[in-house]
């Protein structure tokens, strides 16, 4: 098993790592780049806890090979706040108690940010369908949807 040298841009910074061919982007982020924000809830694309952006689209990083990141632009939860300034979505999640255990939160925030980029004023239904691949077992989704709506309203203002 020989590794491949991969160069990509993560949260705006150029990074290099050696990826084993079978290694997922999620494992690379967590164990090679020490970005532990993306979580592995299933490893098979079903839970969305590992959501990151890859060349502008959200993906499950557990379903991307590390070697595929060559030349790619990647965004993770660690890149969402601007230093100590939280993104409005992050603040809304705290203000609206949209997290209980919080394990789903990084993935949901990354996904919701992309939704609001594409659609600044989504309906409840649009939010729910966009986030259908982000399982949350704690909240029943109610407060998550409300927090996304609140952040959207604030970002439009």
């Amino acid at each position, binding site marked *: 098993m020989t590794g491949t040298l991969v160069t990509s841009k993560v949260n705006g910074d150029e990074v290099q790592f050696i990826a084993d061919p079978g290694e997922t982007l999620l494992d690379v982020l967590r164990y090679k780049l020490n970005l532990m924000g993306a979580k592995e809830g299933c490893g098979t694309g079903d839970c969305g806890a590992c959501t990151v952006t890859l060349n502008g689209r959200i993906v499950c990083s557990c379903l991307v090979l590390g070697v595929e990141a060559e030349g790619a632009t990647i965004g993770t939860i*660690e890149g969402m706040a601007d230093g100590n300034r939280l993104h409005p979505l992050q603040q809304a999640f705290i*203000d609206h108690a949209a997290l*209980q255990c919080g*394990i789903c939160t990084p993935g949901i925030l990354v996904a919701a940010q992309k939704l609001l980029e594409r659609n600044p004023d989504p309906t409840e239904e649009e939010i729910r369908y966009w986030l259908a691949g982000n*399982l949350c077992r*704690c909240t*029943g989704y109610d407060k998550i949807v409300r927090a996304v709506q609140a952040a959207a309203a604030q970002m439009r203002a």
Partner: protein
Amino acid sequence: MALDQPRKFKYVGTRPARPDGIDKVTGRAQYGNDITAPGMLWAKVLRSPHAHARILSIDTSAAEALPGVRAIVTGADFPPIEGDAGMRDVQLNCMATTHVWYEGHAVAAVAATSQAIANKAARLIKVEYEILPHVTDVDAAMAPGAPVVREGQTMENVPAGMSANVTYHSEFGHGDLAAGFARADKIIERNFRTAATHQGYIEPQACLASMTADGRGELWTCTQGHFYFRTACAAILGIEASALRVTASEIGGGFGGKTQVWAEPVALALSKKAGKPVKLTMTRDEVFRGTGPTVTTSITCKIGMTKDGRITAGEATLRYSGGAFHTGTCDMGAMAAFASYDLDAVRTYGWNVLTNRPKEISYRAPGAPQAIYAVESTIDELCQLLNLDPLDVRIKNAAKAGTKSSYGVVFEEMGLLAALKAAKAHPHWNSPVPEGASRGVACGFWFNFGGNTCVSLNIGTDGTVAVSEGNPDIGGSRASISLMAAEELGVPYEKVRTVIADTGTLGYNDNTDGSRVTFAVGLATIRAAQEAKKDMMRRAAAIWGIDAEAVEWVDGAAVPAGPNAGKFPPMTLAEIAAQSFQTGGPIAGHCDFQADGAGVSFGVHIADVAVDQETGKTKVLRYTVFQDAGKAVHPDYVEGQMQGGAVQGIGMALNEEYIYSDKGVILNPGFLDYRIPVASDMPMIETVILEIPNPGHPYGVRGVGETPIVPPLATLTNAISRGIGKRLYELPMSPPRVLKAIKGH
């Protein structure tokens, strides 16, 4: 500790930001799988592919020969536990010895220099099995001649002549059943079945274990109770509890499912053997196959009712299987089944039955949802048969303060009637049922629980407060505990920081379960704060030169009690704290006790559903939860419990189930086919919090976490059954099952 008048709160009942919020929205919070250690190894568990088999041999030589493999353990590496049969079962569940009792039962584990090598090595371990007959269905396991899961597990109270799989029997109730049924105008008896379901927390079990040659260990793990984990790991490894320090990571959901060890003793044993730290993370597949689901049940329920809706007698037989190990969950079901009602004649019988399934572990109100589902469904069917309003009937029969419950306890002040009346007055109940939809209602109950608790509270010289508690925070409890400390001391919430102490720095705390944390840890925090306050009043008295008894605590400051005590300006907590080194040293309060008086919890749910008559698929259109919280310390997180629990119950009702092959193999060990609700499945979950103070808590707090998972099973059954004009008696109400009922075959 009765409340004289409704208390006015300054901090309790507000909704401040939780202390761990920023860490959790920025990805900084550290969960079970989020730390690493220098020189760390990666582990993998090998699991049985068979539902029931004898282990003839385990050959680890090929795995050992693989470069990078550092240690392999099997059942032989764990010293057998004598005496404590319960702990022996926990040990056998962590690692099989002579037999495997369910598909997914661990048989060996490997630690290696990478996850890939560990995985590969696990596949190289050769286990020779002699396959034995298996049984996964609870009724089949009770039948005469059923394959025997494990010999010799039957307890004394089981009548002779039953299947060897029946391990335990219990009975609860009071009154004359025959006389009660004789008074009824209508009696029905129905059979119900419920599938095993999983807690489905999003974070798989994960830990980092480190044991050194001197026999000391460190364990970092996602747990609902690190003190119990220390006890269990020490017993399973045969070491002293004090040799092991367990630190609870942030926890990515548990719902009861992280109250038991699986990975931890194995990781510790590997670490001991390899002389290196070992990380062991379960895959999602292993979580489904190897950790605890709920019981699977078969229930018979018989209820008699008068024409005007008075329940004259109730009887239920609960056949529960918690897998291949004895569990007492049927007691919970048998005690909870009729708890919502004030009955003259009631009897429930619990049976525990062994099957070749993973060992059950608690899932929110363990045992209660299934039992109450049967009772609430039967009552609803009677309401339909007698043409009675289902809410009125429940109001008429509701248990209240003074009622002798079906499990013997006489209830104190409680909120069932308040919740029922709130439901009846609510716009949801009073709105017309939407075109093509139907409506259901049901009650739910949980005992609540106090338990062993230990809290330390330290006043810093800068006037801040540090609370050390020992219960992992699953849903915002640190915020609630801080609020109660702030309330009691009269300092702003922001001045209080609550941390979860490790097992080396605080006395024993029971697991975070049974809805106990806000109640019991809250109570302990209040008592610790009271102790600290007393000390601060003493210090103020000393500074002022007056009697300690002449000082009282008002709004975060010591003040002279009345004009006779002397005239001194209030001395704030911060001022007293600042002088503490001159007045006798650090100021702290501590409380260790066994909390009781948890105060029962009731809820009422209403659902509107639309069933697609051509496909049997149910859509939940509207859902409202009413629940008594005693006092909602942080209303956001009370609502969160109500909403999250309700949605889990909806999942149980509609689609969640373990599906087995005829070989006893789980066919759906992943989130694609084990169908927990996704965001687009759900409507908003409306909540109505009622506050009927719990007399057992100075602020009136009751636990709220368990109850909300209970009512949805019957609420949806009642709604769907009314919608399709056919009664449903089995969960989940998956589309094929509902369509079959609609089409009547």
